[in-house]
């Protein structure tokens, strides 16, 4: 035996481990490098939703679906609007028919008709990807098919996603789904193609009431940044430690 058993086992282990580790996995930036790279960018996209202004027309959902080619009648959507009614008897009822795509036109909610006189408070809450600072969906992607850009937007590489659904499971906000045509993970991109051309997102543009705004959180003069810095705002489900970058004005404790 030209090699000791110990050596044999060690080398087997080493090679087994090394084989599965592509070299690029070791190219992890040093903290300083990483910080430099982040600070070098002058943009961090953020979103502001004013729930007082939303009337539940659903134009944002319609525009988003058409702009981003999510099949109009598929039962999934990148952005949606929820209706919450807190009744005088203390009950909470909520719904989002078709994600609010066709607006809210009926008193019927959760299969019962609720008369406005029985409502104690009510609000419409638009939802979209929170583009979290610590996106759990990206953390769990096994192949590097979803990622965060330097300016803070989480995107999916449609040519690389294997469609395991782990990211869908990992998102506490339920913003992800499978694209009904491409069969890969799909999510709100903050209309990355628009914001990079100096435009607003399709949903911001379509909102007649100014309930939705997008801005650069690194620019102190940006109206969105100013509001977030000076007004009382909240984020959704901060207990998950995801650090969402979609801020809400008038967020009620009943909002899920």
């Amino acid at each position, binding site marked *: 035996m030209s090699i000791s*058993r110990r050596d044999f*086992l060690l080398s*087997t*282990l080493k090679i*087994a*481990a090394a*084989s*599965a*580790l592509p070299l690029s*996995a070791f190219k992890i930036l040093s903290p300083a490098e990483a910080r430099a790279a982040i600070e070098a960018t002058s943009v961090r996209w953020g979103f502001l939703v004013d729930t007082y202004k939303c009337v539940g027309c659903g134009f944002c959902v319609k525009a988003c679906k058409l702009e981003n*080619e999510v099949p*109009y*009648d*598929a*039962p*999934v*959507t990148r952005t*949606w609007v929820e209706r919450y009614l807190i009744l005088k008897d203390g009950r*909470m*009822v*909520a*719904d*989002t028919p*078709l*994600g609010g795509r066709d607006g809210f036109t009926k008193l019927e909610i*959760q299969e019962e008709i609720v008369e406005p006189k029985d409502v104690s408070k009510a609000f419409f809450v638009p*939802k979209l990807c929170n583009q979290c600072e610590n996106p*759990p969906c990206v*953390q*769990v*992607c*096994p*192949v*590097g*098919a979803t990622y965060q850009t330097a300016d803070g937007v989480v995107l999916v590489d449609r040519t*690389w*996603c*294997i469609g*395991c*659904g*782990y990211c*869908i*499971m*990992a*998102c*506490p*906000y*339920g*913003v*992800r*789904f*499978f694209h*009904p*045509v491409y*069969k*890969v993970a799909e999510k709100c991109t903050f209309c990355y193609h628009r914001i990079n051309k100096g435009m607003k997102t399709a949903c911001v543009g379509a909102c007649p009431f100014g309930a939705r705004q997008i801005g650069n959180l690194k620019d102190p003069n940006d109206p969105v940044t100013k509001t977030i810095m000076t007004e009382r705002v909240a984020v959704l489900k901060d*207990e*998950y*430690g995801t650090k969402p970058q979609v801020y809400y004005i008038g967020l009620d404790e009943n909002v*899920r």
Partner: protein
Amino acid sequence: MTEAWSYPEALWTVKDLFVYPNEYIYWSVQIVMYPLMTGLVAGAFVLSSLYHVFGLKDLKDMAKFSLVFSFALLLVAPMPLMFHLQQPLRGMEVFFTPHFTSAISAFGIVFFSYSIVVATEIWFVYRKFFVEQAIALKGKEGLGNSLKQKLYSLLTLGAYDISEKALHKDEKAVKILAGIGIPVACFLHGYAGFIFGSVKANALWMTPLMPVIFIMSAIVSGIALCMLTYIVIMEWKKFRIKTSRKSWDVTAAEVGGAEVDLIRKTSRYLIGFMIAAITLEILDLVFRGYTAVKSWEILRSVIYGKDFVDIFILQYGFGNLLPFIMLVLPGLTIRRTAIALVLVIFGVFMMRWNVVIGGQAFSLSFAGYMHYKLPFIPENIETYKEGFFGALTIGLMPFALFWVINKFIPSLKYHK
């Protein structure tokens, strides 16, 4: 929109009360099968290692069989994932660009290393046999024999030395590989538990106990399946010899079916691991109820309400308590053991089901529910793959594979 689209998840998900629009049962029956299969692999291997490493002589006859059977299971373990992936052809990317912050990416490395360990161990155990066959079949007439000879000489990897000294080395290598295999097997399945336990968005899944619970129930299911398969095969052989008129080189009395003594001894290990698994599960449940954090309200309504039958009757009642009583009562017979084993495996299946499907039974809004309707009749490829028959295909595959493998690597011997 004129583009053709489909959303199969909407076919098997029924929503109730307030559920976010994109929420569906995305992880369905194949993701139940996946930890079940990896669990069986790990369990079968641990059973064989108990003999090789710890020298538990009781398990000697079981060891060879469970080793080869774990290899058959191993080949099937990634199949549920391939059935589940929306882009199965891209599955290899897990090896190409692994993202190690994801529990699933560990699959590439752990699975690969584990396959190597198992295959190598089998090679060392059977090397002598391969060499003998390759030599014996040399020059024999017929295409079958010549193909068989080619296969066996390939399997020898060119190592024809079967001297006493060489075989001694083989034995040592087997012992070492079995020793490495135990932690790797536990890791393989522990990470399957980690896949679920680390999802902070899911209130039911997120618990550090998940990997340990998965390992314990994996070993339970693996031992149970090995015992059951062993019983069925041995009894079948006995039955065939008894009923056929053909003359066999052994008599029914010599085959003797499954050995009660062996079964009794193995079942003791099974009971031990069952106790460990159930203890952990109960601990988890008690702790959730006691701490009663925000999610407990909806979890309680699922555990004690909607999924009560699945959890307490089917999983704990029929899957744990009943077989436990059957196994500990004195005068254990082969038949009673076989029934108990079927129940144990069913119990582990229900545990996987209640974790995977139960974890998606409530909305992230904590204000709504989702029901899973298992597609039975396959209307299209999706409802086949993620339906009853898809799961059945996966469930039967290891037996078919074992049947084929056993033709070339016989692991069941008649006793004298």
